[in-house]
């Protein structure tokens, strides 16, 4: 079946602009995660959704970052007033998150470059 998809695959933006990154999880997966992968910091957790709710936002680095999920499916990560340190690959993962399994499956990522 189809895996996790993300769009765009690449995004170049100017410092100070807002960007929106999209994630389409595997059909039927109730849990959705955003991670950020950068050279200096490795893979970092940003936010977790269960259905449309975000019970864990502890990884969001600042209030410029926000995310939402609608219909228990698509999620959008928004970065306002982008800064150069926001340049990274943003990865989305989804999971069934039942009692017996919570394997996370990743999408290909969106490479964000802030100039």
């Amino acid at each position, binding site marked *: 079946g189809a895996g996790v998809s993300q769009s765009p695959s690449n995004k170049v933006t100017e410092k100070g602009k807002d960007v929106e990154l999209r994630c389409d999880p595997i059909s039927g997966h109730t849990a959705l*995660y955003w*991670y950020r992968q950068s050279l200096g910091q*490795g*893979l970092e957790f940003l936010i977790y959704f269960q259905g449309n709710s975000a019970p*864990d936002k*502890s*990884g969001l680095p600042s209030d410029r970052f926000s995310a939402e999920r609608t219909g228990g499916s698509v999620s959008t990560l928004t970065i306002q007033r982008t800064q150069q340190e926001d340049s990274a690959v943003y990865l989305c*993962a989804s999971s069934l998150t039942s009692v017996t399994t919570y*394997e996370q*499956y990743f999408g290909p990522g969106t490479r964000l470059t802030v100039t």
Partner: protein
Amino acid sequence: QQQVKQSPQSLIVQKGGISIINCAYENTAFDYFPWYQQFPGKGPALLIAIRPDVSEKKEGRFTISFNKSAKQFSLHIMDSQPGDSATYFCAASISGAGSYQLTFGKGTKLSVIP
């Protein structure tokens, strides 16, 4: 505070050899330990995972060894092939804590030379 420490950063192995990557964790609440494989330009792909109630899990050429008392786990790739050349990440999470967020090691870049 780095909760999952991974070594080595890079590894070069001859084709047919054994690749060994090690991870150590600090939080004893971790109870799920997956390994991910990532090729350039791709997202991480789940390779194999283990829970702390077993000391070893094998899937094909990939084996996880787990030492609960030492808080360490490792990935062994037997008969390494050039196609295994990728970056490998260990990770850990806590079940029942609501989030299941993964805490990753820094990664190991494996190069398998013919």
